[in-house]
């Protein structure tokens, strides 16, 4: 949190204190002061060898090593004229130091146009300490507006160690950390796909709640790209639209563009609508133009338009959505179904003399160019009688899932229709025991929470097409849901009992110090419902699920999850991790992970550690160990198993000088071709001004849990 800036309150009643070694003048008009002159008024103190003070105009003219400090900002110069109360005037051949973000510089002249606005002619600006700063920007005209915390400069050159590294016709930059949005400075960098690139943003503050930012960018190997980001925020609607357009990409000879637009608007207290649309000109757009891993791996671009009406106990949504697939020839993706439209009505009341009832009605038209497509209507009413007491809970619930399909197969031109009605009964119950005990010598309340969850759903043959169903990962959330599948196209037959035991150690503050959980599901009848082309698994018992999280101390915490296959008597999935954070900017994480279905056994080490007084090391190594899972009985390949060796890696060094940070980060990630590419990030961050080069922050933040930015106070982690 930046220290609160002293409010620039001016006290018109403040007296002026004057002192020097010699003084002559007329009390009502002006006084002339000689040798070691000091004039103080409220927040302003001015020193000089010689000064003349016009009392009525409250104006001072001073010369001979002039020094002034005002509201924390400090100036020196050889000649100054200044209206003490109004705060206007000028100083020639000045140096300045501003309290806002410790910025300083020198110039030919500074004109104090108003209390918060200064025009600096032929001046420099830097946030480095000391007379010869490591980096500074030099510009013929610079406006510093400490009221809006914005600095703008005309033709500007940025020097680093006296070497010009960036020139720009226009530039705006923040004058304090407080204001981040709206300030955009030129950035420069290189990418392996586009070569050198320079971007000079222009920011238009159209209105307090509307702004437009243009990002003209020159990309060496592609040409000129124009990006635009329009944002608007109002009482009833808000949204943001980003567009990037590159006419005639020299490499592909095509126009390249992308759109990302979100909007939501409240038409009335009940009705609202909005969209979330992404689109790209071609399949390789993400790889060619993305700046970080999150966007470069995003191959399915959602386009979703929704309208919502909320009653007091019901909610209706009409929605149209589909995905643009950025196809990857090496690892093709099947195109998801479009939902054009999907109408959903959800209603429900709680505690209607003890009963909760809820119902969902959904009508969807699934469309696909070549797969079976058509309409699906689903009705899913349910009623339950939850009894929740401090020491136990019992929740019987009856629900019905009725669905009907009318579909056509575009290739064979045949139509078909299916329908099913499936009742489900479930009974959830649990007890909660407690006792006072201690852990690591500190008082704690330990709980013991046994839970039983019985589900009975009859078997119905379901040959209807699968639009949005799949088998969910076995997790604590899934093991306590009635349907083994996600979505409405497959309802698993069930006569099963899930048993679970959870024990927690709760500190006096209410925080969970330790939590251990075990769960397993017992099938009293075989599972017969399956996805097309999948043989339903037999077996009377599900895998055992175990999980534990323990905070040993404020610095050290561990976590483990386990999925033990009772039929094969081995762990089918499991991970264990330890995280040690002794101090800010020091973190070490160690994780071991086993995933038999994916034939994966991995060790993941990541950390951030200071290496010397100004050097910080960051690193992550994801190493795949050899395993024999593939030749185990019943192994079915889901993904291509990673080869033994380093599959993901990151290594970086950060050097923190007092006003700039240099980062070099190498990141190795597997690519579709099976090989791995290493991308290199070089970044020079001039504190409080700009980041030059490719930005590794997102990679550091996602690869190293607990990473902290080295020039931010320790509690802000990115």
């Amino acid at each position: 949190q930046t220290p609160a800036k002293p409010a620039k309150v001016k006290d018109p009643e403040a007296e002026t204190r004057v002192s020097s070694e010699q003084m002559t003048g007329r009390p009502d008009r002006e006084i002339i002061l000689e040798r070691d002159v000091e004039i103080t008024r409220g927040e302003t103190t001015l020193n000089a060898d010689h000064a003349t003070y016009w009392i009525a105009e409250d104006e001072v003219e001073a010369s001979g090593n002039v020094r002034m400090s005002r509201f924390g900002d400090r100036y020196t110069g050889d000649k100054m004229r200044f209206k003490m109360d109004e705060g206007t005037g000028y100083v020639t051949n000045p140096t300045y130091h501003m309290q806002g973000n410790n910025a300083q510089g020198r110039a030919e002249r500074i004109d104090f146009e108003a209390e918060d606005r200064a025009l600096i002619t032929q001046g420099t600006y830097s946030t480095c300490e000391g007379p010869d700063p490591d980096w500074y920007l030099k510009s013929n005209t610079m406006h510093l507006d400490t009221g809006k915390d914005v600095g703008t400069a005309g033709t500007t050159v940025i020097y680093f160690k006296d070497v010009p590294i960036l020139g720009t016709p226009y530039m705006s930059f923040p004058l304090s950390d407080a204001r981040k949005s709206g300030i955009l400075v030129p950035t420069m960098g290189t990418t392996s796909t586009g070569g050198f690139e320079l971007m000079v943003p222009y920011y238009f503050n159209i209105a307090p709640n509307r702004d437009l930012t243009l990002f003209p960018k020159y990309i060496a190997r592609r040409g000129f790209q124009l990006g635009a980001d329009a944002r608007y925020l109002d009482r009833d609607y808000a949204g943001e639209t980003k567009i990037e357009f590159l006419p005639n990409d020299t490499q592909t000879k095509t126009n390249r563009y992308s759109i990302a637009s979100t909007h939501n608007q409240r038409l009335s207290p009940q009705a609202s609508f909005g969209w979330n649309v992404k689109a790209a000109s071609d399949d390789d757009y993400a790889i060619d133009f993305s700046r970080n891993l999150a966007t470069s791996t995003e191959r399915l671009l959602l386009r979703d338009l929704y309208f919502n009406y909320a009653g007091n106990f019901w909610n209706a949504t009409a929605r149209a959505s589909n995905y643009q697939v950025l196809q990857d020839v090496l690892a093709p993706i099947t195109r998801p179904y479009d939902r054009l439209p999907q109408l959903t009505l959800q209603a429900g009341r709680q505690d209607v003399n003890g009963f909760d009832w809820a119902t969902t009605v959904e009508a969807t038209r699934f469309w696909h160019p070549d797969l079976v497509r058509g309409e699906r209507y689903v009705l899913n009413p349910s009623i339950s009688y939850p009894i929740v007491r401090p020491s136990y809970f019992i929740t019987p619930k009856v629900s019905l899932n009725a669905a009907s399909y009318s579909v056509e197969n575009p290739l064979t031109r045949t139509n078909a229709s299916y329908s099913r009605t499936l009742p489900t009964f479930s009974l959830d119950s649990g007890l909660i025991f407690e006792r006072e005990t201690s852990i690591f010598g500190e008082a704690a309340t330990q709980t013991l929470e046994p839970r039983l969850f019985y589900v009975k759903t009859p078997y119905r043959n379901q040959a209807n097409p699968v639009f949005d169903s799949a088998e969910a990962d076995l997790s604590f959330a899934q093991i306590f849901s009635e349907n083994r599948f996600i979505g409405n196209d497959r309802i698993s037959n069930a006569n099963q009992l899930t048993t679970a035991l959870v024990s927690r150690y709760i500190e006096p503050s209410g925080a969970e110090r330790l939590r251990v959980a075990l769960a397993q599901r017992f099938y009293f009848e075989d599972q017969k419902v399956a996805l097309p082309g999948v043989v339903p698994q037999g077996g009377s018992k599900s895998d055992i699920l175990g999980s534990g999280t323990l905070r040993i101390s404020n610095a050290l915490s561990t976590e483990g999850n386990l999925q033990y296959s009772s039929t094969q008597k081995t762990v089918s999935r499991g991970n264990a991790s330890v995280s040690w954070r002794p101090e800010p900017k020091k973190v070490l994480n160690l994780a071991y992970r086993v995933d038999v279905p994916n034939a994966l056994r991995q060790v993941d080490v990541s950390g951030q550690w200071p290496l010397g007084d100004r050097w910080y090391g960051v690193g992550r190594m994801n190493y795949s160990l050899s395993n024999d899972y593939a030749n185990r009985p019943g192994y079915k390949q889901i993904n291509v198993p990673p080869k033994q060796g380093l599959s993901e890696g990151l290594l970086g060094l950060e050097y923190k000088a007092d006003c700039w940070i240099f980062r070099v980060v190498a990141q190795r990630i597997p690519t579709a071709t099976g090989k791995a590419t290493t991308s290199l990030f070089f970044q020079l961050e001039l504190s409080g001004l700009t980041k030059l080069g490719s930005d590794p922050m997102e990679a550091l933040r996602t690869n190293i849990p607990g990473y902290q930015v080295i020039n931010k106070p320790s509690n802000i982690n990115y």
Partner: protein
Amino acid sequence: CGFKLRGTILGNDLPFKSIYIAVPETSTLGSELRRYIRGSGELEIKQSPEEAEAILDLTNELREKVILSLNSQGRVREYVLYYRVTIRVRDNKNVELLPSTQISLKRDISYNENQVLAKEAEEAMLYRDMQSDLVQQILRRIAAIKPADQATAK
């Protein structure tokens, strides 16, 4: 071994008898929290801050999806879903009863581009599961609020 059935959900020495949940109507977390408090019968829910002796502020509710691991073709194999809330409880004279506390939960979810519609629904299921877990943890934090004198005495 000393275990006995839990007597109360929120404890019986809370320094306030009624609470206002300052959470927007649209937040499902808010409605589940109200339902459990109402179900416990140990704390009355008021419709406006003025009537309540204590106010629970949900100062931050953040859901975030971060890549956990890539498969050997460089495509996302697993995401981590984070659900972070920051709560604070103050009495109607703005005296802080529970300082600003962050509760953060996460769940892993495997990802497969060929089942994107199903994964949308699975993600929603995991967030609902984390939400119920958060509600229980918030209830535990409220139950841990001691009357002012006892808290300072400790």
